[in-house]
């Protein structure tokens, strides 16, 4: 016993336990509990009945839910752009240009700003007679107001842009950490062999950044499917169902309409979709990285 108390594994467990407890209460338990809940008509406020797989059956017949899944999958399109731009930005802020720290801070500013505040600012920028429309008109690029958030062909892409704009700084910092982990002697050796700047990026930087790409792709993929704040504040899923995402629809069904059993079933289906996409991403990103041994 005393031997174990002195061991590294005890120390590790001691440090992990508070976090694990919190995770167990607020993450693992709700996930597990949602499974039996999905088989009932639980609404908190009235009697609960077992309904079997009815909720799942209803989900696949629910046009709004299928639209919300589709919109969430469209939202995933921001993932590659997010990775490309954040890598480019990381490369930029990793260079020794004078005043680069100001850029680094500026790029990171949206990350630390509350999503609700960001969404409200964008609603002012993009509303009727908005600043963006005014500037575009002054530049002669448009002749009349564009309804950025109430035009069904634009609204979802506008939201995607806002999500990307806010997330760039965060992923940039992760990639920056990755870039600074790459041993400089690899670059020096390549330069001695006469490698061009482009070859350094393609053959050293990108392969050694792969674990970071995998991590960032995974979390941005999950974030894209789970997107909620900006949609809720800016469009509430409208116009019509143009920006109805799966998280928002689950929220509406649960918290607004008290169909918690049904909302749990929808949550499990969306969870399964995220799991499948994550597995695909894993398959494509198995190799690369710095091997320290």
């Amino acid at each position, binding site marked *: 016993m005393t031997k174990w108390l002195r061991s590294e594994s005890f120390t590790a467990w001691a440090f992990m336990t508070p976090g694990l407890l919190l995770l167990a209460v607020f993450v693992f338990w709700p996930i597990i509990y949602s499974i039996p809940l999905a088989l009932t008509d639980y609404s908190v406020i009235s009697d609960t009945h077992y309904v079997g797989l009815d909720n799942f059956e209803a989900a696949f017949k629910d046009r709004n839910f299928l639209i919300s899944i589709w919109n969430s999958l469209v939202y995933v399109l921001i993932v590659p752009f997010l990775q490309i731009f954040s890598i480019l930005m990381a490369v930029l802020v990793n260079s020794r240009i004078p005043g680069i720290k100001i850029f680094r801070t500026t790029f990171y500013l949206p990350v630390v700003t509350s999503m609700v505040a960001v969404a409200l600012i964008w609603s002012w920028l993009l509303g009727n007679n908005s600043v963006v429309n005014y500037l575009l008109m002054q530049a002669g690029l448009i002749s009349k107001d564009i309804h950025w958030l109430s035009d069904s062909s634009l609204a979802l892409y506008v939201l995607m842009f806002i999500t990307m704009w806010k997330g760039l700084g965060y992923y940039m910092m992760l990639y920056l950490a990755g870039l600074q982990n790459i041993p400089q002697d690899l670059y020096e050796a390549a330069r001695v062999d006469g490698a061009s700047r482009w070859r350094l990026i393609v053959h050293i930087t990108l392969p050694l950044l792969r674990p970071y790409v995998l991590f960032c792709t995974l979390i941005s993929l999950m974030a894209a499917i789970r997107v909620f704040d900006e949609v809720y504040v800016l469009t509430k899923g409208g116009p019509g169902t143009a920006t109805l995402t799966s998280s928002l629809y689950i929220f509406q069904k649960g918290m607004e*309409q008290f169909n918690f059993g049904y909302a749990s079933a929808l949550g499990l289906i969306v969870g399964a979709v995220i799991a499948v996409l994550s597995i695909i991403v894993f398959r494509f990103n198995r190799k690369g990285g710095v091997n320290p041994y």
Partner: protein
Amino acid sequence: MTKKAKGRLRLLVSMLALVVLLSSCGGGGSKPDNVNGGKVTLQFWTIALQPTFTPYFNRVIADYEEKNPNVKIDWKDYPYDAVTNKLLTSIASGSSPDVVNLNTEFASQMGSKGAVVDMNEHLSPEEKAAYFDGIYNSTVINGKAYALPWYTGTEVLYMNTKLVKEAGLDPAHPPKTREELSEWGRQINRKIGKAGYAQQLVSKLFAIDGIPILNKEKTAAAFNTPEAVAMIDNLKKQMEDGVVLKEDAEFSQQVKYYAGEQVAFELAGPTFINFIKTAAPDVYKNTIAVPSPTGKADVRLSNTMDLVVPTKSAHVDEAVKFAVFLTNAESQTAFSKAANTLPSTKDSIKDPYFTQSDQSLEAQAKVVSAQSLDKATDHMVGVPNAKDVNSAVTRAFQNIILNGTDTKQTLTALEQEVNDILKQ
């Protein structure tokens, strides 16, 4: 089994044990003991009324406790956004409040789920007759009244006289019907390039033109009619012509557009005045309030706050009695004076406070809207699962008006969707 596998197994078992341990902590909350030394403590919840109206509530609660020495009122106030979650978690944990302030939509939704007490079972005919019929009936579903109406507000038309005069119109002769309002909006758009007003796309639009949302039995949708098609197409055209802003504008957006003089009118209740006074003092100075133009139904719609008693309350009788006291004519008149709201009781509007105006914008709005209370009705009268129905209707309106889908086809699909909701 290898050492590594054993380690993993141990980890898995520990995690499972932890989850099981935690699961035993959840749920099954016990009901708090609300009876102290023979005294019943009632949990009374309101929405966003503290601290502004704390003196009124302290007074009214003290008065009630004096008249009912066996009852103690524990008053709590929550922000609008938090009250739903708070109520759900309290009911789930077995510590339901006894009297809760909710809006009609939420009260109807809870009533549909059988979560609130039927007031008809507890009130005498005289007590029921004290309220305006149209407002009292707003939460009656299948003959059961799921809430007592409390303070209310009807829309009035706020008019920016500066913009109206610039467009060559006379504010002294305001529009009396929605059609006239559209004509005014058209002229404003033509002459000064502004829009008439901003509009939220909600099921209330049906009620304004007298299109029933559901049939008399409340068992099926009843809005799929030529009148509804005409009403929606008309609104769509008005948005295209710049009479109404082409957007589904929530109240906060409407305040912004009016404050920025992007629209000349606003259809809203009395709370709008406070927002505009703060946001745009100059616009406030140029604003007058006139009776709201009526649609084809010739009714004025109320937005009512109700009091409900959850079925999970441990003291239903005492809770209903307190709710009746808080919504009686005397209490409501006093609250209206304190909060600049309208009462839902017939006797209250006989008070000079509701008949005399000192010509300030607040007084104009108050007198104008008080006089239309006898015509007032909530647009969601007796609609089961009101929240589900409302969001489906809003989505359909947005699809037709903003996304350009076919009106008839969309209404038919909506009819099916609402019928499915009613079967739940």
